């Protein structure tokens, strides 16, 4: 019998939630010795959980568990920058993504690593030498708060050497040759600030592809956007949303026109607008939006949701889950029409992913 496994990464370790019916959930954890988790994923191919974590005391490591969290190992062998590489310092691993038999890891300063032995050892793929803006995005004084560097890795489901990455505060990039060369993919995005660079300098928070990977949605620092050509061009679709700011976003796994986002106040609070928690949905690719709040706290709910804080499962009637930066986890199994709280009260949630396990 299959079960759903929710991986809830928090500022104080990783929690593993399991359910056979997506109503009653058991909670295990915290794992990874309560290190801050930046992203945790279950590799469907190997059945291994990988977590990108960084401790203030002990540095960064990729944690792995081959038995759904019962036992853990960690490694940072090879995760670091050579002395001669312009003095780049690695402050944290901020993203981890298994794809096509290898494990990709993103870091700050912005760099991409890979492991071909299941997370035991790593090698540097690139630090984006020669890329316009590299000096700025590796300068902590010119980075947005959080200092995530390479904040997301989005692998193409079929093409092994094709994937997208986000450099926090600067750009979405695409590679089609496994990371040797990169093309900025920001055409059509809005930016409400002076441009230091022509092709980069766009604050990409989250990119959520549809299953076909031609349709993509993007929550940007300024505006919600849609692409119908795999990120080559973008069109703004903010109209109808309460704000143009947010982090978390998720595309329906079976319907490319249906997409969910959690708008937040665009000031420095970055919490639910007017303290009213809601997820917003479009069923027509962004032409119109519906506010979904049944079961969510709608008064005095000044909570935020971070960029990896929302995820779909792969059921025919997919479940959607999101976790707040103050530790509440919510789920819906009816396309967002109703919500209920899942699990207990967690430390601040940084990452939510979900998988179905046989």
């Amino acid at each position, binding site marked *: 019998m299959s079960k759903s496994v929710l991986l809830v990464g928090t500022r104080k370790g990783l929690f593993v939630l399991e359910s056979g019916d997506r109503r009653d959930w058991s909670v295990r954890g915290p794992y990874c*010795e309560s290190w801050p988790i930046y992203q945790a994923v279950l590799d469907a191919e190997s059945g291994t959980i990988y977590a990108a974590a960084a401790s*203030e*005391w*002990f*540095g960064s*490591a990729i944690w792995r568990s081959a038995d759904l969290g019962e036992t853990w190992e*960690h*490694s*940072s*062998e090879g995760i*670091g*920058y050579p*002395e001669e590489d312009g003095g780049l*310092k*690695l402050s944290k691993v901020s993203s981890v993504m298994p794809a096509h038999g290898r494990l990709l890891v993103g870091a700050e300063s912005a760099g991409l690593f890979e492991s071909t032995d299941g997370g035991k050892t790593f090698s540097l793929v690139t630090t984006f030498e020669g890329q316009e803006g590299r000096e700025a995005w590796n300068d902590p004084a010119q980075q947005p708060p959080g200092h995530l560097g390479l904040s997301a890795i989005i692998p193409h489901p079929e093409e092994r050497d094709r994937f997208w990455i986000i450099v926090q505060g600067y750009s979405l990039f695409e590679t089609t040759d496994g990371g040797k060369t990169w093309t900025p993919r920001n055409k059509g995005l809005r930016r409400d600030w002076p441009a230091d660079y022509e092709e980069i300098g766009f604050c990409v928070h989250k990119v959520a592809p549809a299953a076909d990977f031609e349709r993509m949605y993007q929550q940007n620092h300024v505006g919600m956007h849609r692409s119908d050509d795999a990120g080559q061009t973008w069109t703004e679709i903010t109209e109808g949303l309460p704000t143009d700011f947010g982090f978390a976003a998720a595309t329906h796994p079976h319907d490319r026109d249906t997409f969910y986002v959690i708008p937040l106040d665009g000031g420095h609070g970055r919490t639910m607008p007017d303290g009213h928690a809601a997820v917003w949905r479009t069923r027509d690719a962004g032409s119109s939006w519906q506010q979904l709040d049944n079961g969510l706290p709608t008064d005095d709910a000044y909570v935020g949701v971070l960029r990896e804080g929302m995820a779909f499962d792969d059921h025919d009637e997919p479940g959607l889950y999101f976790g707040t930066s103050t530790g509440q986890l919510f789920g819906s199994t009816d396309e967002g029409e109703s919500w209920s709280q899942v699990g207990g009260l967690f430390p601040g949630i940084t990452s939510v992913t979900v998988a179905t396990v046989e």
Partner: protein
Amino acid sequence: MAEVHLPPVLLPLFQGLPRELAVEAGTVLEAIDRLDERWPGFRDRLVEPGPALRPHINVYVDRERGGLETELGTASRVDVIAAISGG
């Protein structure tokens, strides 16, 4: 043999790593490297590229503040301390 005392928060990261153990080494860094041979990855947890001690890790040799290059006597006591910080 130097006597190395490790912080409790480090122990769960490596199976079988004891709180106290004896190590044959001429410097603090050598002692860390000896332990890395027995528990691969140990060095990465305490030392960052440079090499340098990680910012919130302190080492005392015979009760005095030391560093990676601090020399060890045959009966030195090495205390590795994880700073009391965080929230």
